[in-house]
């Protein structure tokens, strides 16, 4: 024990004896002094409760000596004149010791109960943490420290599997889960070790198993999606790239063939096919590139301040307005956003092209911009078929084509790319089915608030 640890019980014990002695001194006028000796139990009891049996016995002996010295004739000596006083003194001492023993036992029980409570609380906390999916490895230092505090050791840590250092093995049944590594001079609470460690080991085993299952499930899911993506890319390359290639080859060869007789009008038709199909190939290749960049997480945005109307202007320049016109409605105050303008343009172009594809013949695509406090929302609406509620999220998945989408122009990548680029730039995309019909795709980006002196 440390010096400081002894100071408190010593002071307390002395104080207890002094206090009770003083009390008897004050009371001795009215009551027979011999019966007042039992008051020393009041000194023994708290000492026994707070500091244990040894201190309590010491206090009992000191009390009897003080009683004899101060109150029993002849006073101020340790001698006793009457034999009956010896008997009383002996009874008091025995009582004090018995009481101290009882109190100390109660104290041990309380400490033990507290210890168990601490162990159970820790196990409960651990099981919640592990079952709620917190990472076991991340939690290990905390679990190790908490375990140390439960078994009365500082600097304990847990190593999973077979630890190279010496320690206590954590076993769940026959399975070695890990090792509790302790400092060399650790003074263990042995009963707590016996009680707590098997429970801890079982819990860790459950946690490890759960993590392993989760990892396997994730790996399987990853494989499945990457397989689906590969198949879809193969399909896209095989069908969607070859179709324009076929049209281009046929049109180009017919223009140069000496065995064919083409009218001027036919030549123009073939040239138009060449123009349209090369553009289409270009779009497909861009989309495949964008998509693989997003898949590989290689699309790092280079953010800059840009006005929303400028973004829309750039996107409109890259979209064919020929078959389906696009009209734009801007607010009075044009908000600024801080995004990679090339990437957001790609997102917008894909949303616009998608809206054009589904717009009924003769109807325009309508773009509306609304600025809130924190966000600017671009809504791209057409009068085409509404999207079923359960498909509103689905449309942004790569290679998903909804029923009725027999269009051959898409790779099924456009909206997935739009979502990828929007999210990479801190934005969101979603689809809406407005009550008055049609389909709306919305892109939202945080408004960049420019400090007054930076603004023009």
């Amino acid at each position, binding site marked *: 024990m440390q010096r400081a640890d002894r100071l408190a019980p010593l002071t307390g014990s002395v104080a207890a004896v002094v206090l009770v002695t003083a009390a008897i001194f004050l009371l001795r006028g009215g009551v027979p002094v011999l019966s007042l000796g039992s008051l020393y139990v009041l000194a023994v009891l708290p000492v026994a409760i707070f500091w244990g049996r040894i201190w309590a016995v010491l206090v009992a002996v000191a009390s009897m000596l003080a009683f004899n010295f101060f109150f029993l004739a002849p006073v101020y000596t340790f001698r006793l004149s009457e034999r009956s006083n010896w008997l009383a003194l002996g009874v008091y001492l025995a009582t004090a010791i018995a009481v101290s023993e009882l109190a100390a036992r109660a104290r041990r029980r309380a400490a033990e109960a507290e210890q168990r409570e601490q162990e159970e609380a820790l196990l409960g906390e651990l099981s919640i943490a592990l079952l709620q999916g917190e990472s076991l490895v991340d939690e290990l230092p905390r679990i190790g420290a908490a375990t140390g505090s439960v078994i009365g050791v500082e600097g304990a840590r847990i190593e999973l599997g077979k630890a190279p250092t010496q320690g206590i093995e954590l076993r769940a049944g026959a399975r070695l889960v890990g090792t509790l590594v302790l400092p060399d001079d650790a003074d263990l609470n042995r009963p707590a070790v016996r009680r707590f460690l098997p429970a801890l080991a079982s819990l860790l085993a459950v946690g490890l198993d759960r993590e392993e299952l989760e990892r396997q499930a994730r790996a399987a899911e990853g494989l499945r999606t990457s397989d689906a993506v590969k198949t879809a890319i193969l399909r896209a390359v095989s069908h969607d790239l070859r*179709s324009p290639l076929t049209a281009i080859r*046929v049109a180009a060869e017919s223009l140069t063939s000496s065995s064919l*007789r083409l009218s001027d009008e036919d030549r123009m038709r073939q040239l138009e096919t060449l123009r349209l199909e090369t553009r289409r190939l270009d779009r497909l290749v861009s989309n495949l590139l964008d998509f693989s960049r997003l898949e590989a997480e290689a699309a790092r945005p280079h953010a800059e301040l840009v006005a929303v109307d400028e973004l829309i202007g750039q996107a409109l320049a890259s979209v064919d307005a020929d078959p389906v016109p696009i009209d734009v409605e801007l607010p009075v105050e044009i908000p600024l956003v801080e995004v990679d303008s090339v990437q957001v343009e790609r997102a917008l172009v894909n949303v616009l092209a998608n809206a054009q594809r589904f717009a009924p013949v003769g109807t325009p695509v309508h773009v509306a911009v609304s600025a809130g406090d924190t966000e600017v929302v671009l809504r791209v609406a057409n009068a085409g078929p509404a999207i079923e509620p359960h498909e509103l999220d689905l449309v942004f998945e790569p290679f998903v084509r909804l029923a009725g989408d*027999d269009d051959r122009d898409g790779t099924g990548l456009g909206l997935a790319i739009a979502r990828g680029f929007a999210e990479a730039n801190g934005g969101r995309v979603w689809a809406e089915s407005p009550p008055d019909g049609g389909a709306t795709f919305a892109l939202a980006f945080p408004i960049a608030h420019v400090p007054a002196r930076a603004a023009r």
Partner: protein
Amino acid sequence: MSGTRVLVVDDEPQILRALETTLRGAGYEVETAPDAATALTRAAAKPPEAVILDLVLPDRSGVEVCRELRTWLQAPVLVLSAVGEERDKVEALDAGADDYVTKPFGIDELLARLRAALRRAAAPGEPVLEIGELTIDLDKRVVQRDGDVVSLTPHEFALLRYLAQNEGRLLTHRSILRQVWGPSYQSESHYLHVYVSQLRRKIEPDPTRPRYLLTEAGAGYRLVSPSLS
């Protein structure tokens, strides 16, 4: 061939347009259909003399269209297939298609295949066929190569006769087996490989580099006149 009516079926508007223009430039009269339903309606309304059919259509597969056309239309069917659609291609040939070209095809190849298919359809069943240096007398069951008689077993002769009657046309394993050995043999393709190799030793100048009896990998065989290929 001028004025020969060809029905082109493809779901790709640009391919349809390019083919229509090209075929018209080659002197054909062209009708187009973007899907199976339109194709069958157009074919029924005005039976074409040849059909160019894409295997991937939005409403039904090209194989089904081919099978249905074959129930009442004699005109040759040329299938447009793509890499990755080999099984559909063989199925279409089994269902009665005459030949195929693989996208992206050149117009010379397409026009040559189309001409060959039309020529076969027009050719009457002659008793003596001449293919390159081969002379096949169907009545007398005599085969000569460059004037020398080639002796063939009955199955070898049946195989050569079927190939020669369909000169230039791709015949699938299944259809050859069915025709030469009978319907119960149509999956026994090892028979076919053995007989083809025997037949090549008898009719080819160099059996390791066949010039008459050509293999179409994964699909079937084709007997051609060496001067044409």
